[in-house]
């Protein structure tokens, strides 16, 4: 049996005449952290939006555990096992942190006390338990990113899409984020990780894809990609 969790095949997304994602194929295996790097406008976030159903792709296919999810809605994809965070955190700003984590549990058949305990446990994991009665809008940007990660964990997804999890996050919160990602990977969760923070992405990634102008221009182990002249040219120019 294949251990491929996510398989993207020849995915294309156009906005009018602009081809933002151009025939991209990639895969993420169980327990693997796959990094996706590229300069601004390379199509990284668009690709993520196609994977989790926010955008409808124009061509190609997205498969989760070998099931076609290409035309599914974001909530169906979330329930199928794909969690997602955003570059700019989308927390529920005027809700306390416990309620922020309880919203994903809408379809969970459990008592209020159990749901609250689960939410509190989620907050403990990302070091936000002490702030549990604060509202989302009272957190710093970095804390909101941790809250988003905790919210993702609530649904116990198999695959987690992280969009720039380290951008604008201070070093101590970055450390918590890194620890959580590694802990989840150890629990066999898979990741597709987009980041400009090359240090973190090189440290975490088991496999790396490089996207440039909507196309994959390189892939492989971190060491191979780091030294690939095509990648160096794409990042630094001639």
């Amino acid at each position, binding site marked *: 049996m294949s251990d491929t969790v996510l398989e993207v095949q020849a995915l294309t997304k156009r906005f009018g005449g602009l081809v933002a994602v151009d025939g991209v194929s990639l895969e993420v295996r169980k327990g693997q952290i796959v990094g996706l790097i590229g300069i601004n406008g390379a199509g990284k976030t668009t690709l993520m939006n196609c994977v989790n159903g926010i955008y409808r792709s124009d061509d190609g296919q997205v498969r989760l555990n070998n099931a076609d999810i290409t035309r599914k809605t974001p*909530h169906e994809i979330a329930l199928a096992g794909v969690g997602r965070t955003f570059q700019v955190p989308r927390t*529920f700003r005027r809700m306390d942190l416990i309620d922020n984590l*309880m*919203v994903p549990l*809408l379809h969970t058949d459990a008592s209020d006390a159990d749901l609250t305990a689960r939410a509190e446990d989620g907050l403990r994991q990302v070091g936000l338990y002490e702030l549990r009665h604060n509202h989302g809008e009272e957190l710093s940007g970095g804390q909101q990113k941790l809250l988003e990660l905790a919210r993702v964990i609530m*649904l116990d997804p198999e695959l987690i899409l992280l969009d720039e999890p380290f951008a604008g996050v201070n070093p101590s919160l970055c450390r918590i984020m890194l620890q959580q990602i590694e802990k989840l990977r150890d629990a066999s969760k898979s990741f597709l990780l987009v980041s400009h923070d090359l240090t973190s992405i090189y440290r975490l990634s088991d496999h790396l894809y490089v996207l440039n102008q909507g196309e994959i221009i390189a892939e492989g182990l971190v060491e191979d990609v780091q030294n690939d002249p095509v990648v160096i040219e794409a990042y630094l120019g001639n």
Partner: protein
Amino acid sequence: MNEVLLLQGLVGGIVFGAIYALIGASLNVMVGVLRVINFAHGEFILAGSFFAYAMLMGLGLNPLYAVAPVAVLFFLAGYGAYFVLIPRLQRSDEPETSSFLLMFGVSLMMIAVLTWIFEADIRPVNFSFDPINVTLLVVEDAYGPGRDGRVIVPTARIVALAVNALMIIALTWFLYRTLTGKAMRAAIMNRDAVQIVGIDVHHLSATAFGLATAIAGVTGVLLAMVVPSVDPNGGPPLALVGFVVIVLGGLGHPVGALLAGVLFGVVEQVATVMLPQAAAQMLGFVILIAVIFFRPSGILGLAVSR
């Protein structure tokens, strides 16, 4: 200043304010969750009033008996109407503008239907409780030695206020204590984020539309008890009150709307008994303009959100 008159205005303000609170809260749920500027909200309320009127005229039943069937039927109608009216709008670049135009059309259509069925006249809703009135307070020597003043309220208004208060408590409980209510509030704050945590935003929106329609319908029943008359052309002023209350309470704060509704009702009714009528009608809107200038997020929005 006449103490009795002031107290009478205050009591009337609380009765009408509670109704405005429900109008504002239901409209706030609709605008917040669905981004729909429901200009037909007044007609949704009127439909509830006419339902109660029809039950009274057809079956001889006190309007109070219309509360439960209106709540159920209007919820189902609202839930179904969502799928007919709204999803197409949300594919538009400017769903708010499109929804305003669409719901304005729905408003005109509903006025036409109500006028067609019930004709254009204002109809009295003739019913009563026993006793007809309740004396809330006796102010001794209010009008001179030996001439007491009485603060009198029709029993129907007290009953309507009690039902109204129960609905406000139930709505607040629903929004803050149930997972569906929390999901609705979350959708008001960030609709995209709700989808990516596994919530079917169409089902949630349809539920919100049904809930808001049901509350509007019941509000109409209570209004028919309080006024007591029904007028097919009375919808737009009610929708206007709803939008004023939303601005006062803060968009996206259903509980802020509840409090703002009561405040608006009290100011309006007290002003009605204390000031010339034109000035009284203006006062509420003066407050509205002041709030827009000085607290654009709503007079109670921030306090309630925390």
